[in-house]
């Protein structure tokens, strides 16, 4: 089933607010990674995905794997906003005794298809799901959200080769390409460029979008399958920390937690944008 499209801009704003509140309350890292992909999640869960929170295991659903599991706060926020579990539960994130772990976990959390946290796992599992759905004649699309730094992992490229070889045209890799990884810029760590050409050379259909432009995201993510017989990668050019000016495009906020005045300023800025 597909619900009426939500206001994805408002949804993205709420995901960002949740992510800042959750990571600050729990003292966890990776807030900038969650902010970076908030628009991607909002467009997926607010508009594109065929999912039913009342039947999280509905066989014909679209599947989403957050391979960049460190941005779990954003994923949990999107699922709660979409109605998979109560928003109230988000307050337990990263707290003692909670099942909402910093890196996304499926146990007891409806809507999470795969637990992740170690990078380079999601695309292979997504490929397996896509292969099964294809064999079973399901309309399901399988999306997996990757970070750019994650593409350092060799296992990603194993899966990239596999998916094109097996013509998994309902498999979509969505790269949150914010150009910053854990300790430094991607370009200074292991350069990915020419990134789009690499995917093309591996047999994928490549779409490049502004990862904060909802019209572009909706067209790219909703238009799958685009090219019969080819998997699609949507390279989303994003800004790490998007939405909180002092977090944007900084390496620092990969790990830093907003506290005190920083927290208040972040919330004020996000609430201003949400109005």
């Amino acid at each position, binding site marked *: 089933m597909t619900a009426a499209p939500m206001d994805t801009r408002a949804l993205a704003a709420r995901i960002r607010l949740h992510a800042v509140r959750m990571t600050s309350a729990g003292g966890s890292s990776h807030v900038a990674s969650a902010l970076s992909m908030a628009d991607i999640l909002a467009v997926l869960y607010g508009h594109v995905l065929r999912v039913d929170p009342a039947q999280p295991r509905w066989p014909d659903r679209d599947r989403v794997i957050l391979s960049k599991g460190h941005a779990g706060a954003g994923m949990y926020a999107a699922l709660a906003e979409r109605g998979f579990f109560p928003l109230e539960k988000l307050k337990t994130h990263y707290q003692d005794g909670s099942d909402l772990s910093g890196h996304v976990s499926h146990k007891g959390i409806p809507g999470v298809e795969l637990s992740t946290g170690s990078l380079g796992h999601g695309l292979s599992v997504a490929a*397996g799901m896509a292969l099964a759905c294809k064999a079973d004649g399901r309309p399901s699309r399988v999306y997996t959200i990757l970070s750019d730094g994650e593409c350092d992992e060799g296992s990603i490229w*194993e899966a990239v*080769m596999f998916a094109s070889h097996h013509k998994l045209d309902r498999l979509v890799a969505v790269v949150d390409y914010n150009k910053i990884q854990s300790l430094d810029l991607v370009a200074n760590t292991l350069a990915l460029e020419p990134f789009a050409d690499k995917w093309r050379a591996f047999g994928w259909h490549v779409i490049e979008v502004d990862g904060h432009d909802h019209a572009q995201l909706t067209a790219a993510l909703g238009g799958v399958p685009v090219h019969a017989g080819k998997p699609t990668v949507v390279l989303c050019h994003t800004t790490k920390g998007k939405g909180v000016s002092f977090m944007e495009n900084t390496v620092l906020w990969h790990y830093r937690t907003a506290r005190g005045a920083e927290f208040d300023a972040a919330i004020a800025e996000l609430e201003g944008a949400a109005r």
Partner: protein
Amino acid sequence: MRDVFVQRLQAIAEQDARVTLITGDLGFGVLDKFAKALPAQYLNAGVAEQNMTGLATGLALEGRVVFTYSIANFPTLRCLEQIRNDACYHNAAVKVVAIGGGFSYGALGISHHATEDIAILRALPDITVLVPGCDWEAEQATAALVAAPGTAYLRLDKSSAGNTGRPGETFTIGAWRRVREGDVLTVIASGGILGVALQAADLLAQEGIALRVVSAHTIKPLDTASIGEAARDTGGILTLEEHTLDGGLGSAVAEACLDYGWQPKRFGRLGLVAGFSSIVGSQEYLRSRYGLDTPAVVQGVRDLLAGRRVRAGVAAS
């Protein structure tokens, strides 16, 4: 063991469309019949074990029962984290199959010596670890793994104790089998080296020393009841494995004895003393070199019965 595994799996797969076999580009000539008969249930994932295990998980989460197949340490250690995080944590029906356990590929060098796999795999949560000792067990284990939910590791080796199954006998995961009755001492063996234990038992029987020989075909869950019976009812326990002594069968048995407060009258472990074997050779040769052949087991039994410590193999060189 390899051939009976593939044959049995094919027979099951012909009746059960969920059963899928994925190879990591190994199994020359061995998987052809399966591939030809069941193309929709067979896949060569290429030389990419991490992806193979991840995609096996994806298929399993969609209802398949997936066997990943490769040799030695490739389907296990190379992709250990995919087994742990993807398969085990999701209770996915991924059955990891390694052929070439122990020194099966002894002449190929240390990359192909699977001598720590059991210790490493048994440390994972939510996994079943099976190490059949003979063809009958390998065949039965294959069927049992299709029926059992969740993730498993099936370690097959080139050697086999032949066919120890008795007419009408049933195989149960976690229930060890007594393949010789006796009470002087219990030898607990896992893997094809069970055949060595049986040969030693035959030799000692000629002297009136009746060994109980137990096939520990399941390392996890551990058959603690069988260990308790051996500790209480026989003259002691000697474990035998083609695997490092650090964390394998012998360790598991020792742990159980201490955990449950059982004190075997005598206790010893035969296995590999930690180290790489830069020396190569046939499985039989390397067993002899490292104190895992029939004379070594006979000597081990004699040592224990004489109250001496068992010389636990020879350090690898």
